[in-house]
Each structure stands twice: as structure tokens, then as C-alpha cells.
């Protein structure tokens, strides 16, 4: 028998061109045999300086750029940004627009979770669910295409409402989706949830306990997967969420499997919210607050256009001086905008609090002491997007 006197630590570079990092993330792993001793996340490969860009753009001009944060849930990004600006300006939104916003936000949540489910299964080794989830996501993207004309970068929500009214065809598609989707979701659920390979790859892997999850600033499903009952839709309610009936799933285990189950349940809850919205949505009314300075000013009757409308578009809507922080519950976690305004049409400083940025730097504490084979499933379960990490 050959005895091993000493073990050498090995350093492995993972990324930036690694499919399991969901973007251009790079991790330097220090290994002791198969055990991970340390992880050093390195990011910045997708850094575009969005916060600096925002300081040089009017509030409205920055709208399309917000889509590029978390590019698999652009609708939710738009909504969070608009809600932050509305909080700064003290603007009101008509009822129909509120319902449209909830509709698209929850659809966006389902689409984002579907991508997460497909890619996570693919990373762990189950290829089939990937096709099923992408088929369902496609129907959601078709709906978004119908209302705003883009597949990924929507630029649909506006300060004071939404840019276009939803069409009857959209409602038809949505009703059809709500009828068929829960049945289709059972396919991926049946393939994975009780599968023994899936369970052994995810159960008791990447555990983070209640206190650590809070201290490391996790948010969204990752926080709820550690047993914290915290959802900004309930705890800091915005929009018309208080009038809707839904539950917040949370599980105390804190492992990959718990995060997986929480997200699956969230999809079901989103479907429940969508059903209520379809019933309650007012059939008529404004989709945009007519007094909002962001309402398409140039589409007035011709004699109504004045020089001030041009100036408003070029210099931007003047927000009152002050500062505001608004965090919205995005599929990935809490997306917050901290805006400091000096009274001009551009923000003086904008800090974008993104969930993925915090999650990437919480990775070392989650995977420390685990096996190298498990890091892929932990990365997938944290569900980060590098457009958000590097901003």
C-alpha cells in the first residue's frame, strides 16, 4: 500500500469561459484533494459602468439600459426602476396600468425561473428538462413580443404607466398559457423532483444556515431557501400586491434542494397571482397616467407641441432634490435603485443594488468544505447573471 505523506493544495481556474458560470464569471478554486478550501470570485469582465452612464443620461434615456442588467428578467428590471423614479417624483399610476405591470412582472418571474430550471438541470446532467422549460419560456416571450415588440430588451414600462396598452390577442394568449402551463410544468417536476440522482446531487449540498444567509445579504429565493420568511412583495408591498392573495414559500434546510423547491413553488404562486389579475383587470381605462411628464409628449395633436416639450425630452424631467431607495422583489432577489437627485433632469448618483453581485461574493462561504463536483450545482442554485454582477 502506498501511503500519502502529504497532500498538495491545487489551484484551479474556473472560467471566464465556463458554461456553468452563466456568463463570464471566473472563480479561482483552492483544492485539497476533492475538497474545496477556498474560492476567490473575480468579476468585471462585463463591466460597463452603468452607474456612471446613468449620471450622464436623463431618467427616460436610461430606461433601455436598465434592461441590460438582468437580461433574462428585463421586465422586472424595468418595473423596479420605474417604481424607484415614481417614488422620487411622487407619481401615481392608473389602476389598469398597475394590473398590466403585475401581469408582466409575474410572467417575467416565471420566464426567469424557467431559464434557471433548464440551465440548472443541464449543468447537473439532466438534459431533457432544458428543452421543456425553453419551450414554455418561448410562449411567454411570444406574449411579450405581442405587447412591446421585442423579445429580450423590452423597454416597456414607463414612469406613470406602461408604454402601450395590452392587446386582446395578448389576453387570449395569456389565458391559454394559464390553462396549459401548470400541466406542462408537471413534466419538468416529474423528471426532477423525486429523481434519485437529482436528489443526491442537490440534497445537503451547499448548505447556508439562517444567520449566515442574512449576514451575507442573500435575497430572494436563496434567502427563503434558508428559512427566512422575507419577500418584498409582502414585507414592503408595492403596486397592487397587497390586494392579491398569494403565499411566500420558504424552507428551513438551506441547501440546493430547498432553493430548488422554493423556486418551483414560486412559479405556482406566480400562476396564482396571474389568474387573479386576469379576473380583476379593469377592461377599460388609461394605461398611462395622462399627467405624467413622461407620457409621449410628441404624440399630441400638432398644434399642441410646444418648445417646452422638446426641452423636456432633451433635458429630462426635473426631479426634486433628495434621495430615495427602492427595492423590488425580482426573480433573482432584491433589485434596488438608490437615486440621489440634485434637482436636475439626470440623477446625481445612482447605485444599483443587484442580488447577483451579493450572491457571487457569498459563494465562498457556501461551497467551503464541499466537493468540487458540487460547485456547479451550487452556482446554478444561486442563479446569478453576470450582466447584473458587473453592471
Amino acid at each position, binding site marked *: 500500500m502506498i501511503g500519502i505523506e502529504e497532500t498538495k493544495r491545487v489551484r484551479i481556474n474556473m472560467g471566464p469561459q465556463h458554461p456553468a458560470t452563466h456568463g463570464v464569471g471566473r472563480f479561482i478554486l483552492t483544492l485539497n484533494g476533492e475538497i474545496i478550501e477556498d474560492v476567490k470570485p473575480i468579476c468585471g469582465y462585463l463591466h460597463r459602468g452603468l452607474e456612471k452612464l446613468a449620471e450622464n443620461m436623463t431618467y427616460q434615456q436610461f*430606461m433601455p439600459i436598465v434592461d441590460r442588467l438582468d437580461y433574462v428578467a428585463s421586465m422586472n428590471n424595468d418595473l423596479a426602476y420605474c417604481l424607484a423614479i415614481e417614488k422620487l417624483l411622487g407619481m401615481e399610476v392608473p389602476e389598469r396600468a398597475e394590473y398590466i405591470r403585475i401581469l408582466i412582472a409575474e410572467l417575467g418571474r416565471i420566464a426567469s425561473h424557467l431559464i434557471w430550471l433548464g440551465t440548472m438541470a443541464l449543468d447537473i446532467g439532466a438534459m431533457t428538462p432544458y428543452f421543456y422549460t425553453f419551450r414554455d419560456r418561448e410562449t411567454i416571450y411570444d406574449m411579450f*413580443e*405581442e405587447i412591446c415588440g*421585442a423579445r429580450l430588451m423590452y423597454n416597456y414600462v414607463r414612469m406613470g404607466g406602461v*408604454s402601450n396598452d395590452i392587446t386582446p*390577442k395578448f389576453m387570449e394568449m395569456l389565458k391559454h398559457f394559464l390553462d396549459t402551463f401548470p400541466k406542462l410544468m408537471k413534466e419538468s417536476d416529474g423528471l426532477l423532483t423525486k429523481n434519485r440522482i437529482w436528489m443526491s446531487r442537490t440534497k445537503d449540498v451547499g448548505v447556508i444556515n439562517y444567520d449566515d444567509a442574512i449576514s451575507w445579504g442573500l435575497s430572494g429565493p436563496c434567502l427563503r431557501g434558508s428559512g427566512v420568511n422575507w419577500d418584498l412583495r409582502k414585507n414592503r408591498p408595492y403596486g397592487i400586491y397587497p390586494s392579491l392573495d398569494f403565499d411566500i414559500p420558504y424552507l428551513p434546510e438551506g441547501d440546493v434542494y430547498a432553493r430548488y423547491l422554493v423556486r418551483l413553488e414560486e412559479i405556482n404562486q406566480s400562476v396564482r397571482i396571474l389568474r387573479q389579475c386576469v379576473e380583476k383587470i379593469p377592461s377599460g381605462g388609461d394605461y398611462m397616467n395622462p399627467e405624467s411628464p413622461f407620457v409621449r409628449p410628441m404624440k399630441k395633436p400638432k398644434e399642441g407641441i410646444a418648445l417646452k416639450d422638446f426641452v423636456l425630452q*432633451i433635458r429630462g424631467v426635473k426631479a426634486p432634490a433628495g434621495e430615495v431607495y427602492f427595492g423590488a422583489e425580482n426573480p433573482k432577489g432584491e433589485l434596488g435603485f438608490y437615486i440621489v437627485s440634485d434637482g436636475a433632469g439626470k440623477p446625481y448618483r445612482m447605485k444599483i443594488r443587484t442580488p447577483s453581485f451579493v450572491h457571487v461574493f457569498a459563494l465562498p462561504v457556501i461551497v467551503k468544505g464541499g466537493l468540487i463536483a458540487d460547485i456547479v450545482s451550487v452556482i446554478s442554485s444561486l442563479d446569478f447573471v453576470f450582466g447584473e454582477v458587473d453592471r
Partner: protein
Amino acid sequence: MIKEHILFADLIKGLSITIKKLFGPSVTLHYPIQRRELPERMRFLHKLDLTPEGKIKCIACGICERICPPKCIKMTRGTREDGKKGLTEYEIDIGRCIFCGLCVEVCPEEAISMTNIYELATYNKADTVYTMDRLVRDVPEEKKAEVR
């Protein structure tokens, strides 16, 4: 758990789902041959609209140039062939454009709109710059000089 272990219940369940899919309808399209019908609101290549008389609607106010977030629109103003002052050249760099649609939204004359032409790949980088002649799409090639 033991029961599942012996009967392979989880594997049988998974396999039955995948085998069912063999007989279902196809959900994919054979792209270059089959094409999807696109919704009306699609935001792809820009188009300069014409008045009923067949002239360009654009009044060269320059607001689309100013609001464009990636600054991909370039507008030149000057004296046109008929002696009036106005738009002489209009360029959109599709390589920079992010297709946000803000230029369409702010235009006071509704002179610019977006079409559903999405196949914009080229072999040449210079071809990504769309000049006025290429952006006017409603008239045949030989009549394009008349729209100015």
C-alpha cells in the same frame, strides 16, 4: 424510499414523460424555410416615412439624435436641392443601435417608424451604417432621389 429503490418508480416516471414526447406535435420551426408571423409592434430596422406627396416627413428637428441612448443616429441639415432648408442626410448605425424605440416614440412628425425586418447581418462592417436611401423603403430604387 426503499420501495422506490426496488421498483425504479422515479426512473419509470421520467422515462414515461420523455417517451410520450415522441408522439407529440413538433414545437420547433425550420427557420429559413418556415417563418413566424411577427406581431405588428415589432421593433427592428428603422424606416423613414413619406408624406402622401412622396416626400420625407422628417423636419430635421434633431430630437431623435439627442435622445438616442447609444448615439447611433447622425443627422445633417443644410440646403436641399429644391432650395429649402432641411434634412440632407440621415444615418443610423445599426451596429450601435440597441433597438429601444425611443426615437420613434419622441418623433413629433411620426416620420420614423420601425419595421419587422430582422435579418440585418452583413459581411462588411461598413454595411451596418444605413443611409437615407436605404432607410426609405416605400418607393422603388430609381425614384429614391425624388423623396428628398
